[in-house]
């Protein structure tokens, strides 16, 4: 037998497979997530915190302008970013053992992190900017009566449309209008699709029945040929095509609306009869964080004037610091956030929490729509 023959034996692979399978099917661990985090916190109290922070962010939010106050106040802190593409991705990464100290997601997904023991309660008494956050926003960060999350960015979802190609849009059903075939862009997101259909048909989106979901699935399958593409990055494959004139009607956030307005594109942001949608971004601190105090400082500084202000003036997202929003005078931003419309919130639907079963059913439905 030659050396090559011996080496061709798969023993290293077999050993590795056995090791992995033993680890995978082992029964040794009965530790609950809560207990794990409690013991982690105990050990944290004994050792000094590392001066480093890992933040699990939506792609794009790692920009230093979003956390400039923290960077200025903590020049020696090492801040690293892991990036996710959407709320499901962020949750999946957290479930998969992300080492993030801080994570960012949007309204609707609050309950999962608490139920799965992935997040720790926040001591808001340590936050210096907390009093600038409106109570309605604070409430969105609470689960089971405890403050687990800090609200930060917020905005609207509605129909963004090209006023030269499309008459005034008054309903979400514009996304299904065959007159705009090949020039419609829907966000690549199952829960968003369910929300839009719920608005159009008057369904209660917190209690979608199986029959309603089946009908929603059919509706989006029929809509698919009308769509230019499903966008998944606002500034990569939505705004450029809105401004180039390829997209006439889009499910969009106000950031793209403001961007298009600044560029002089003839666009409008609908006030549909069913109401706009509104969302709020929330930050949580991982239950297993090695640097919970630094994480809290990071979030507190994100609420500070400069970081929050940058989110508004540079990226056109609303921010939870009420003082910053009150100081907005730029006409484009006033228009984008409908600051001059006192009735806008009365006609706005805030994203409700979804259950795990709804999330799974809706994302599975959307995957089938795309694969059809």
């Amino acid at each position, binding site marked *: 037998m030659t*050396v*090559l023959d011996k*080496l061709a034996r798969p023993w*290293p*692979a077999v050993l*590795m*497979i056995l090791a*992995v*399978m033993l*680890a*995978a*099917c*082992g*029964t*040794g*661990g*009965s*530790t609950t*997530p809560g207990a794990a985090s409690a013991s982690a916190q105990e050990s944290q109290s004994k050792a000094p915190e590392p001066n480093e922070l890992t933040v699990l962010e939506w792609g794009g939010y790692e920009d230093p302008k979003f956390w400039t106050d923290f960077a200025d106040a903590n020049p020696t802190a090492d801040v690293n970013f892991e990036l*996710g*593409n*959407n709320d*499901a*991705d962020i*949750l*999946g990464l*957290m*479930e*998969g*053992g992300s080492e993030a100290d801080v994570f960012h997601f949007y309204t609707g997904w609050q309950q999962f992190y608490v139920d*799965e*023991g*992935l997040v720790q309660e926040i001591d808001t008494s340590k936050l210096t900017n907390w009093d600038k956050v409106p109570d309605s926003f604070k409430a969105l960060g609470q689960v089971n009566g405890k403050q687990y999350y800090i609200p930060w960015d917020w905005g609207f979802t509605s129909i963004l449309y090209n006023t030269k190609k499309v008459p005034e849009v008054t309903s979400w059903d514009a996304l299904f209008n065959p007159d705009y075939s*090949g020039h419609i862009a829907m966000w*690549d*997101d*199952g829960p968003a699709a369910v929300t839009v259909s719920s608005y159009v048909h008057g369904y209660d989106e917190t209690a979608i029945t199986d029959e309603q979901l089946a009908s929603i699935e059919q509706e989006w399958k029929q809509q*698919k*040929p009308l*769509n*230019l*593409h*499903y966008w*998944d990055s606002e500034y990569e494959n939505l705004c450029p095509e809105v401004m*180039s*004139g*390829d997209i006439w009607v889009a499910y969009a956030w106000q950031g793209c609306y403001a961007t298009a307005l600044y560029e002089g594109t003839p666009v409008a942001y609908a006030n549909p009869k069913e109401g706009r949608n509104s969302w709020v971004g929330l930050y949580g601190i991982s239950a297993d964080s090695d640097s919970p105090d630094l994480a809290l400082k990071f979030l507190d500084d994100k609420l500070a004037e400069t970081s929050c202000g940058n989110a508004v003036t540079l990226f056109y997202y609303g921010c939870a610091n009420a003082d910053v929003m009150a100081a907005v005078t730029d006409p484009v931003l006033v228009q984008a956030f409908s600051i001059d419309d006192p009735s806008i919130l009365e006609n706005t639907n805030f994203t409700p929490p979804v259950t*795990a079963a709804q*999330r*799974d059913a809706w*994302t*599975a439905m*959307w*995957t*089938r729509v*795309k*694969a*059809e």
Partner: protein
Amino acid sequence: MLGRRGLLRFLIVPPYLWLAAFLLAPVVLIAIMSLRPEVGPINFARAWQPTLDQYRTIVGTVAYMRQLGISALMALIVAAAATALAYPIAYFLAFRAGDRAPLFLFLLLVPFAVSFLLRVMAWRLMLGTNGAINSFLEWLGVIHDPLDLLIYSRAAVVITLVYVWIPFAALPIYAAMGRIDRRQLEAAADLGAGPWSRFWRVTVPLSLPGAAASFFMVFIPSIGEYVTPRLVGGSETYMYGQLIQDLFGRAASWASGSAAAVIMLLLTVLLVLLATRIIDLRRLAT
């Protein structure tokens, strides 16, 4: 001092370990993950009962299986087109470039200096509604309105993938042609074979193993493509690789994403095994 065997072991063990750690182990982990029953926090130390539920769901969803078939067909088209287009390039390098072959080979490899993403993004500029091709056709007066089909279509995905793979596909064919004993061509000429006859009866058969290697080298990664269809494809150009990405990323279901990945892996291995049984590469090479 290392003997011949020792040297061989010294050289071969590191790549084996590397492959075991970074190829085999992840594949095994994916296979194990595919047997997990539910989504939720992933903790391998906690007991769980293996199940085939994820496989049943994937295989039982007609739309998913249809996408697998479409993706396999698209990969087949891309691999065939890239191999066919790479063949003349390899032939030129092996038989016609002469002393300048290294220069042309270098030029062939120049695109690799640019990131894959940038090369694909460049095609958006080429194929876009206001892109180079539409603008040129409008300037010529051939069209009055931009052609919608150029981008966000299956054609756009195929065109882009073929472009990306041509340089890769040319290399194994070039290597195979480089090994052809030129005396065989001279013997064929001495026996009265003309240029076409020498090409079809000597060069082509002897270079087929290289062409087959090129084909598989393009086919295997193309079947699981998800970046290119995401960038230049539209709502109607979904591919199976995107399904895997969606199950992991959008559905937050690593178990079903893993099952979908294992199914694709098995299909790919099956197709390659089937093809290698039909095409006996060793026989072709002799």
